[in-house]
Every structure is written in structure tokens, then in C-alpha cells.
């Protein structure tokens, strides 16, 4: 049986042209996907535009704020927590904090530290109020081998997971290194609360938006120190501008071996710790 070659040729040509079309379409889709992937993977978020913010005489391109915590100095007095609550109108309850202090206690014969914070019911009972904080003397009579306090706050990460996941861009990284929340834009989905590996965010039910430490952005842009730093009686909290080589925080960074919390998260936290232990995360 003879086969007429023409239809086969035509079919082949048609087949090839279709393959060509499909390849082109594939290439365009691929290139588009690559572009999108780059955008999505972008580690550094584009900071909000504008040279001066939030005040006319403040240029956020001229500062690089950083925060240091010397855990060896902290005495767990919790003045910082109360100062923060007052300064930033944080709800007066034992469940929502912009900053908090953790207590790590190693009892003789135990493998792991006992950890608590001032929000623990035992400590709240000791203070007698959800608005005032103190650490109860709950390990009286125990043989304590080692104990220390660790102040915690938002790490203002270089690659913040909260900024990455915000569906409307309401939470953003400023040029001077602080993560802020635009509460007029936020839809209140709380994805950022879930994404933060440090538990730094809480949801303010009254305002319908999340809230977190901003290193007292309203103060630092006016040349003041964050409220917690100012309230700390022992200098355990250190704040300043890394652009100024003689600032307290620059010296703190230069003169100490530093640690950050959960470095494996890839978030690159910007709160630097001295004197924390292996169990702190």
C-alpha cells in the first residue's frame, strides 16, 4: 500500500509549528514565572518611598537603628515592661505585650531550665494585678544552680517574615531598620502574628489590627530613647544608631560577642544579645 506523502508532510509541518508555538508559550510562561519567583523570593523588601518620615526634620535614610540586650545585667525588675505598656497604650492585661522578660532557672538535678515570664498566673497572683508585673519568689527552698533574665522585644528583622506575608503591605520595613504597621491599611488577618517566629506580635481587638514593638519609633525619630531603654535601671537595654560609630549600640556591637535569637529562621534579627544561654530562643 502506498501512502501519499503530502498529507503526512503537511501534518508534520503543522505538528512542528505547533511544537514551536508551544515552546514559545512555555518560554514566556517560564520567564514570567521566573520574574514572579524573584519578586516573591526577594529577601530585602522595598522600603516605603519618601525621604523624610515621620516628621519633616527627620531623614530616615541617615540612620540605622539597632538594639542590644545585655542579659547578664537584667535584674528582672520589669520597669521596662510597665514603661512600654504606658508609653505605647498596650492593653493592660497579662496576655499582650510589646516587650516582656523571661526568667530561666536551673534547679539542681534537673536537665532543663524552668522558664516563665511575668504573665504566668503565679507571677500575676504575686503582683495582684494584670497591669503590674513582678516575678514571684516561686523557687524559694529549691537549690538554684543558675538563673538569669532575658528581655524580649520585636527583633526588627532584616528579612522579616511578617512583612513577607502581609497581603496588603500594611506592615513594612523602614529605611532606618524598623518594622512598622500601617494601621489604616491593615485588614486584620493576623497572618503576620502567625508568621513571626518570636511571638512578638499580638492582635489588638479594640483597634482590629496587630501591634508590636517599634523601638518606640515616635520617640527615636525625635532623638529620644525607647521607653524601655530609658526605664531600665541597670543598662541591660542598649539602643542607638549604627551609623554613629561612637553610639552606645555601636560600642556594644563592637565590644561584645553577640548572639541573635533563632538564627536558623533566616530572618536576620536586629536585636543583639549578650549573655543568653542555649535554651533561649
Amino acid at each position, binding site marked *: 500500500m502506498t501512502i501519499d506523502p503530502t498529507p503526512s508532510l503537511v501534518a508534520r509541518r503543522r505538528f512542528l509549528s505547533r511544537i514551536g508555538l508551544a515552546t514559545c508559550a512555555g518560554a514566556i510562561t517560564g520567564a514570567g514565572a521566573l520574574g514572579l519567583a524573584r519578586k*516573591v523570593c526577594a529577601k530585602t523588601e522595598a522600603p516605603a518611598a519618601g525621604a523624610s518620615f515621620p516628621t519633616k526634620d527627620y531623614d530616615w535614610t541617615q540612620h540605622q537603628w539597632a538594639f542590644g540586650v545585655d542579659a547578664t545585667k537584667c535584674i528582672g525588675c520589669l520597669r521596662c515592661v510597665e514603661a512600654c505598656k504606658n508609653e505605647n497604650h498596650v492593653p493592660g492585661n497579662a496576655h499582650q505585650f510589646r516587650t516582656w522578660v523571661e526568667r530561666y532557672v536551673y534547679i539542681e538535678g534537673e536537665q532543663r531550665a524552668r522558664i516563665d515570664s511575668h504573665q504566668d498566673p503565679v507571677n500575676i497572683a504575686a503582683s495582684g494585678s494584670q497591669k503590674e508585673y513582678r516575678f514571684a519568689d516561686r523557687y524559694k527552698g529549691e537549690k538554684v544552680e543558675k538563673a538569669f533574665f532575658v528581655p524580649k522585644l520585636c527583633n526588627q528583622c532584616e528579612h522579616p517574615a511578617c512583612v513577607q506575608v502581609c497581603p496588603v*503591605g500594611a506592615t513594612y520595613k523602614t529605611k532606618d531598620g524598623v518594622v512598622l504597621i500601617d494601621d489604616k491599611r491593615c485588614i486584620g488577618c493576623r497572618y503576620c502574628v502567625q508568621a513571626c517566629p518570636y511571638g512578638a506580635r499580638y492582635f489588638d481587638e479594640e483597634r482590629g489590627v496587630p501591634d508590636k514593638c517599634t523601638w518606640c519609633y515616635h520617640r527615636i525619630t525625635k532623638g529620644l530613647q525607647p521607653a524601655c531603654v530609658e526605664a531600665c535601671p541597670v543598662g541591660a537595654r542598649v539602643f542607638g544608631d549604627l551609623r554613629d560609630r561612637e553610639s552606645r549600640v555601636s560600642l556594644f556591637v563592637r565590644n561584645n560577642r553577640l548572639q541573635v535569637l533563632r538564627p536558623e529562621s533566616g530572618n536576620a534579627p536586629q536585636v543583639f544579645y549578650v549573655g543568653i544561654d542555649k535554651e533561649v530562643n
Partner: protein
Amino acid sequence: MESLIHFAPYVGWVYPNETVVEWTILLAVYPYLTGLVAGAFTVSSLYQVFGFERLRPVAHLALLTSLCCMLFVPLPLLLHLGHPERAFNAMITPHLTSAMAMFGFFATFYVVLLMLEIWFAYRPYIVEQARKRNDLMGKVYKVLTLGSYDVSEEALRVDQKWVFWLAVIGIPGAHGLHGYVGFLFGSLKSREWWSSDLMPVIFLFSAIISGVSLLIVLYVVSCKVRKVAIDVGCIKGLAYTVWAFIMVALLLEALEFANIVYKGREGVDMIMEYVTGPLLVPYFVLQFGIGAVTPLLILSYMIWRHTTGRALVFGVTLSASLVLLSVFMMRWNVVIGGQEISKTGKGLLTYFLPILGQEGLLVALALTLAPLAVLLGMIKLFPPWHDKAGHAVMAAS
């Protein structure tokens, strides 16, 4: 401000801000509904695209079910938002690095696709009703014709082509939408219980089994209510579908759990304490034992013994109901479970489900059942039945 009444009790060490569980039961209802959408659509596609003739009696019902569930998907999210009036910010100014930003676009795309497919599938029926009826419903059908009264053979052929291609596009559409919901959780590195590459696939397969199961229940109930014979071939086809997908779903879940345990990263001790303690009943007993393994065994037995007739219908419907429970428990165990394990990896929280309130049990139940109520209306407007009692015109499509 007074103390929050819904703070979660805890054991061990948890971050202070974690003592309020932020994603409630509504966030479990959301993926449940999306899953039903994807699963129901799978059934319609198996018929429309892959030519599974057995599934013909439920093909149109599947489309309507998918749409009805989809209409309610955004509602649990809206009820949960702190500022629902700003919800459209996510579409007007989406932040592209966010996994959540695309939801509005995906959902809109899919709803439009479903409505188009239903319109093409029902066009002959709509035209017929528009011509036949003079009452108010007649007017409704007239509007629904969108001015197109051509039901010539050529026009119907074009309609069928549209239905086919929309179903083809709908497969990645529906499954993409649901895989994407899995990604919302799986892409978060803050929680070991969520952070998994397998999460989107697990969500997808559980979605398929839930949607198919819902159709089984709906089909059987509708036949009983309408007093028509149940098409055993169709039930068998659906049962095979559930059986096949449940195997994959179970395997994936097992892989996921094995990965967490075997990798044994930081916090695994707490996870083990959790799954063998508070999660024992919801996870091992309800989700796996009663909800997945039992239906798998029942279905396997019936396939092996060539069960047919009433026994088959009963067994399959029972299995389907169990699967529906299992998949809801899976959503619950992911969403609530993830938050009950502290980010510290050193403590466990307890979420209490309120009965009343915006994010309570009653609202969640209403949201889960609402699509079925709308479906009741929808099947009046677009009868999906293919049997003799159903409308004759459906036989043409």
C-alpha cells in the same frame, strides 16, 4: 481593659502573646469549604474531561455543589478580619510576596469559571424555560439566557466545546486554589506543625476525597427525597474514586508525620507529647482511625466482595460520611493544632471553642451548612438530574 475572656490556658513555656489563639474555627471552615469546592469539581471533570460515563448522574450536581461552596469560601475569612471593610485592599494593592495576596484573584477567577461552565452546561435548559414560562421565573430565565436563544446543533456543539475547555482549565484552577490554601500554612516557618513542603499536596488529596464524599451523600439523599432509584454504577464509580484518593491522602499524611518525627528537629518532643496527649482523639482516633482507615476498610471489603445493591449504597454512604468528618478533623488539627503547639517548642496551649459569638461553633456550623441551603435553591433553578424524573433536556448535554 478587662482581661480577655478567650485567652488559652497552657502548660510548659509559651510566649506571652501566644496565650490568645488568633486563628479560630472559622479558619478551619475556610479550607474545609475550599476543599469541598475542589473535590466536587474533580467529579465533574472526571466526567466532562476524562469521560467517566458512570459519574454522569452527579456531573451537574457536582458543578452546582462546587459553586455553592465557593460562594461561601470568603465568608469565614471576612468574619475573621479585624477590618473586613478593607478586605479589597488585598486586591487593589496586593503585596506580592504574601501567599495570601493572591487569594482574591484565584477565588474570583474560579467563581467566574464555574459560573461560565454552569451557564454553558445549562444553556439549552435556560432557553427552553425562558420560552416556556411566563411567570416570574420565566423572566429570571430570560435574563439568564443573556440574549442567546440559539440552540441549534451547531450552537450546542460550541457549548459543549466551552464546557470541555472550561473543565480542563478548571482542573488546575480548582486544585491550584486548594493547593494554595495548603501553601498558606506550609510556607510558614514559625511553626513546625505547619512548615512542610507536603502541606499543599496533603490539602489537595484530602480536598478531593471530601468533595467526592459530599457528592455521594448528596446524591443518595437526593435520590431518597425524590424517590428515584439510585444508580449503583455511579455510586461504584464514586466509591472507587474515594478509595483511590484516600490511599494517597493517607500515605501523604503518614509521610508528613514520619518526616516530623524522623527529622526530630527542635520542638519535636513537644509535638510528640501533643499528638499522644490532647491530639490523640482528634488526630489518631477521629481523623485517621474512624475517618480514614475505617472507610478504606469498608470500601476495600465491598470492592473485594463485589457488594452491590442496598448494601453497597449504605456502605458507601457511611464511608463518605466518615470521610467528611475525617477531612474536617484534618483541617481542625492543622489550623487549631498548629497553634496549640507553642512556637517556643516548650509548651502547649488549649483552644476553647465558644458556642456563641462571631467565631463560635454555631457560626461555623451555619457557614458549613449554608452552601447546602443555597444548593437547595440552585437545584430548583438548574435541575441537575439525569434520570427519567429529571428534566429531559439534561440528557442532551
